[in-house]
């Protein structure tokens, strides 16, 4: 039985923008393209197993979170010497539709430890409550709050510098 799951297209329509914003903020616009495809392909494969009463947004962001970790790991393996992190991960200003994008800030987000980065992006870009952030990155709510706090403190140093 598939229960009362909506047609996948409706699920995709409802969550694609938040997944996109999460991914662009986590891995940059170039890698976000691949991660976006991988996220929804994986979601489509697993979709019939999603329980109709679970939270579909947290579920798909969990997948997106894993894909963003994969992208960061792959980048680390390539180990290109990074002089300009903004250019290295393809975050050239021309690739962006938001002209007011703050390069310093997003490079700093990019360099946060994985859990802090995801906590910050899930909290502010995806607008998730702490409980959902915890479920998405797979930790306790308290740990999620702590990661968020630590991530914000680091960013504050960079931005006010």
């Amino acid at each position: 039985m598939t229960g009362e799951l909506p047609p996948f297209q409706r699920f995709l329509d409802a969550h694609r923008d938040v997944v996109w914003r999460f991914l662009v903020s986590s891995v940059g616009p170039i890698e976000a393209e691949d991660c976006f495809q991988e996220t929804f392909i994986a979601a489509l494969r697993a979709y019939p197993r999603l329980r109709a009463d679970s939270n579909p947004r947290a579920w798909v962001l969990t997948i997106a979170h894993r894909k963003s970790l994969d992208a960061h790991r792959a980048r680390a393996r390539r180990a290109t010497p990074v002089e300009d992190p903004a250019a290295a991960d393809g975050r050239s200003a021309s690739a962006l539709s938001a002209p007011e994008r703050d390069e310093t800030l997003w490079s700093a987000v990019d360099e946060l430890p994985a859990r802090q980065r995801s906590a910050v992006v899930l909290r502010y870009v995806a607008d998730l409550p702490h409980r959902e952030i915890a479920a998405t990155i797979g930790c306790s709510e308290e740990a999620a709050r702590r990661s968020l706090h630590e991530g914000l403190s680091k960013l504050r140093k960079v931005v006010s510098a």
Partner: protein
Amino acid sequence: MTDRLEDALRRGASAEHVAAGTTRRLSARIAQEGLADISYTPVDSPFGPLLAAATKRGLVRLAFPEEDVDSVLERLARRISPRIVEAPAPLEPVQRELEEYFSGARRGFELSLDWSLIGPFGRRVLRATAEIPYGGVLSYGEVAADAGSPRGSRAAGNALGSNPIPIVIPCHRVVRTGGGIGGYGGGLDRKRWLLELEGAFPGGPPSA
């Protein structure tokens, strides 16, 4: 508490919406790799856009413009699979054959069909219906007899009324014994129009 940092983070690193090209590439890839159980797309018709849906087996549903897209899709999700994705590519043959049919250039469909929305009795009725040639008509009683239930013309009428693939399974070719046009799920005007297109009534189709 909000401050400049939090505001900047809230604006995110991208515009609000994912680009159309990105979602198009996603649905193209889903279609190419055959990851969806059901693909659907609107197809043009003289009646307005029809919703066509196909499984890997074939065309499973053709809905008239006034049918609510969401309820059609939700029903498919319940009955067959929720892996339903909008993608035009798998439905290109459907679009092409319907276009040829509506322009009078095609007299029969070569599309493969998925009968899984149709129950056992409905299948017998609609298979008998699918045998009626272009330009021909049968009565409800005759179709019921062909389906193996000579006294089941009312039941046959019900089965025809819930035909999930109208036009392609030509339930419009079933009319009343006395010469009346009978009923049609898509409306009697469309039934008359289709019969006229096929030249079923050289003197004009009957009214009621």
